[in-house]
């Protein structure tokens, strides 16, 4: 069975569209090329989600791979009751949670004390003494702000963090997030609200505000 779009089109397939339904049906019927399109459509968002969740690019790659393996094994049972994105992210969330749970048993170091980039660089999220020369550089300022966000997110509860990752960086709708996490929609919203509030409180404790954090406007 063929699907009437190419890998180049894969990015344009929208959630809940007839194209998506057609693609899923082709996958359910064992069409390998359709599954490749599905992978193409979702590999990048899933990687970014897993990367932000576990903080290690190599681990994120493995988790995305595991997610797709589970999708292959169980897509036959996907019945379109929930949005496909919800179904997909529920798998990814569970795998990420399992990974962190296993990791917690092995280490007492904060999971997000360090993160490993796509290029394999291991970076601490702790504040560092600012290099005055570097702070005049826009890239260094952006890096400082990114590090701040990583640290603030790492300080949230896992429940709060995962909702922020799904909403802010994956642009899922609240109903989709609720489906993916198996919680009422208002619970997802409340967690997001509390997460943002907690981030702000943390900034205030450190004498900063979102506007004038590292590298931000003063």
């Amino acid at each position, binding site marked *: 069975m063929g699907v009437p779009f190419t890998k180049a089109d894969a990015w344009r397939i929208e959630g809940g569209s007839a194209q998506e339904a057609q693609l899923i049906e082709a996958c359910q019927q064992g069409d390998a090329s359709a599954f490749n399109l599905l*992978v193409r459509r979702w590999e*990048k968002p899933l990687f970014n989600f897993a990367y932000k969740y576990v903080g290690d690019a190599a681990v994120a790659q493995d988790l995305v*791979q595991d997610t797709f393996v589970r999708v292959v094994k169980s897509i036959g049972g996907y019945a379109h009751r929930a949005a496909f994105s919800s179904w997909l992210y529920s798998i990814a969330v569970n795998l990420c949670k399992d990974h962190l749970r296993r990791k917690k048993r092995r280490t007492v170091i904060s999971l997000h004390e360090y993160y490993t980039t*796509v290029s394999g660089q291991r970076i601490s999220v702790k504040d560092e003494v600012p290099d005055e020369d570097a702070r005049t550089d826009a890239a260094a300022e952006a890096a400082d702000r990114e590090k*701040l*966000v990583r640290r603030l997110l790492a300080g949230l509860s896992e429940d709060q963090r995962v909702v922020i990752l799904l*909403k802010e960086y994956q642009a899922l709708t609240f109903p989709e997030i609720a489906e993916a996490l198996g919680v009422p929609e208002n619970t997802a919203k409340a967690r997001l609200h509390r997460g943002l509030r907690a981030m702000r409180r943390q900034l205030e404790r450190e004498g900063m505000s979102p506007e004038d954090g590292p590298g931000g406007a003063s």
Partner: protein
Amino acid sequence: MSEECGNREERLVSLLYEDGDPSDLADIRAHIATCAACREEFEELASTRDLLGAWPNVENAPRMVFVGEPAAPAGAVGRGPATSGRGRFRAFLPSLAAAAAVVLLVASSAMFLRFQVGADGRLRVGFGASSGSAMDGSALVTRGDLDQGLARTAEFLEAIVRDAREQDRRAVLDAVDQALRDQNASMGNQVATAINSAFDEADRRRRADLGVMLSSMNDLQVITRTELQQLGAMVAAVTAAPQR
């Protein structure tokens, strides 16, 4: 704060992301225009949300290629030896293909598994484009990766080559290399073709052992990045075997 501030958390978050029923969002907008407390909180949420943009998504996320056949019907997986040499191996192939096989590639566009015999007589395993003779260096399976390979499978193929005459050994390597160069097919097919070619060229006495090895791979269920590296280890071990 008034009664209209009820469910404030949920409502403000809905407005923050413009994710909700349009009429509800209009109500919330109207409310925060008149309620200083909710307006202040909304503005704080918005500025905190803005900060999240400082951690952008990675654009060069690693690419993945699916190399198997999903949702294989029950019973499609071949088990047990067949009667002829090639047929025996073919009997194992469907199970490899039917496995939920996903190979992770740190690469872009169409990439293929490539084997190349170097000037030192060793086989290099890597990912490369379908055309051109040079190996792409970006995603080569390193010696370190190969060292983590399956000792058992390496031992089988090493034995095949050890027991073969030198010209047979070269034929195995050449056949693998040629198969991978000629085929404009998926990586899964290329791997299968390469193994088939090696099998065709191998000493007949070792084919049963190779069949056992491949049968054991059925239990892996998936071809993961690690397992692909193990396959590389298997072939690298062949080339590292002492010549006779």
